[in-house]
């Protein structure tokens, strides 16, 4: 896994002392690593049950939306791997490059209403919030907000 911001600090700090801001960010990051690792473990462990629950819940709430296949539910749950890696590295750029940019382009290219994917993620969020502790959810929250923001109609339309 690449921690891009940490790598950049180490590269640019070559043969000089770290400044206060860099030290504060690194210390803050290292103190949160156990929680971040716990999140990754939790998400990995819960993948099969989350997929089943998400598919069932989407079919119950939106029976008319044929977009919500089991495979798409599985894809969305698996997208949490990208989220988890970005959280572990504390770098949202990884999430944007690996998942969000592709998702936005795919939604626009296939004329899929981004609100439908946003709805699916909202259900997934509810399912996750029931199972994750508050401290774990706190480290996940910035990445989740990034996902939510990317699914606004304006942003998707802008990629067309």
């Amino acid at each position, binding site marked *: 896994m690449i921690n891009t911001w940490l790598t950049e600090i180490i590269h640019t700090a070559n043969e000089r002392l770290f400044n206060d801001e860099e030290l504060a960010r690194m210390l803050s990051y290292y103190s949160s690593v156990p929680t971040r690792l716990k999140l990754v473990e939790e998400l990995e462990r819960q993948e099969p049950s989350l997929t089943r629950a998400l598919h069932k819940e989407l079919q119950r709430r939106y029976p008319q939306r044929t977009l919500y296949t089991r*495979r798409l539910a599985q894809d969305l749950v698996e997208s949490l791997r990208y989220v988890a890696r970005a959280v572990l590295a504390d770098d949202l750029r990884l999430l944007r490059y690996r998942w969000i940019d592709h998702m936005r382009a795919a939604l626009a290219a296939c004329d899929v209403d981004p609100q439908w994917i946003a709805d699916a993620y909202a259900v997934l969020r509810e399912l996750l919030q029931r199972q994750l502790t508050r401290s774990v959810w706190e480290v996940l929250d910035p990445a989740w907000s990034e996902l939510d923001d990317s699914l606004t109609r304006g942003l998707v339309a802008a990629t067309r």
Partner: protein
Amino acid sequence: MPESASPFRLKGNYFAEPYHFRTDVTTGVCRTPTGVRICTLPPDFLLGLRDALIYECGKSYRTVLKAAGRRWGSQWIKRLDREWTAYYQQPFRELPAGLIRVCLADAFAAHGYGKLDYTRAEESPEFWSAEIGDSLFPALVGESDRPVDLLMSGLLAAIFSYLHGLTMDCLQTECPSMGAERSRFLIGPAPRIAELEAWWEANTPLPSHEQVLQQAAATSHAPTNGQTHTHQEHHLPHSQPPLEVVS
């Protein structure tokens, strides 16, 4: 791409994994996750290759370079088809057309070939209008009185032939080496492209992309009944393992 009623999928950018192109410094070999060997060919090599072809083949270097692109593209898209089929756990060609477009754009960007986009030509639906931003050869060659993105023309022809199961060809209509912003191409059934290319070559100055599209619409033929999506791959020998170019 052929229209597909396949369910929508979201799997992320296949190439955006860390170390997608992984170099083993002890052996000096770079490979993709599926083990395909990748090598970097620098601009000096590519220009040298082009110059040698011009010297050895004269005017027919354009045909040779495009054929090389076609051969390369035929192998490239077959490999990507295998890899994407495994990634999506369903046949790649059955994915929604828009998703195939996004995957191909991801592939072009990851390999450094530029920013690809294409749409079906509204004026004449048997054709596809494609463009590549920051394409390689125009950046290397500089000024020219003819389009120079011949490798990409061949590559696109091979990709569309493979995905449509028809023999398609590609005509580059605009090129940064002639002052355009980006490389633009018209892709369609090979006989139709041959007709258009003959018309295009006979005109001075060379017609723009839009003019070629208008000509395509004006000379549009009724679809042939036999032109279904049966798969007719190019009969190319495949004794060599695929070796790809990253520039």
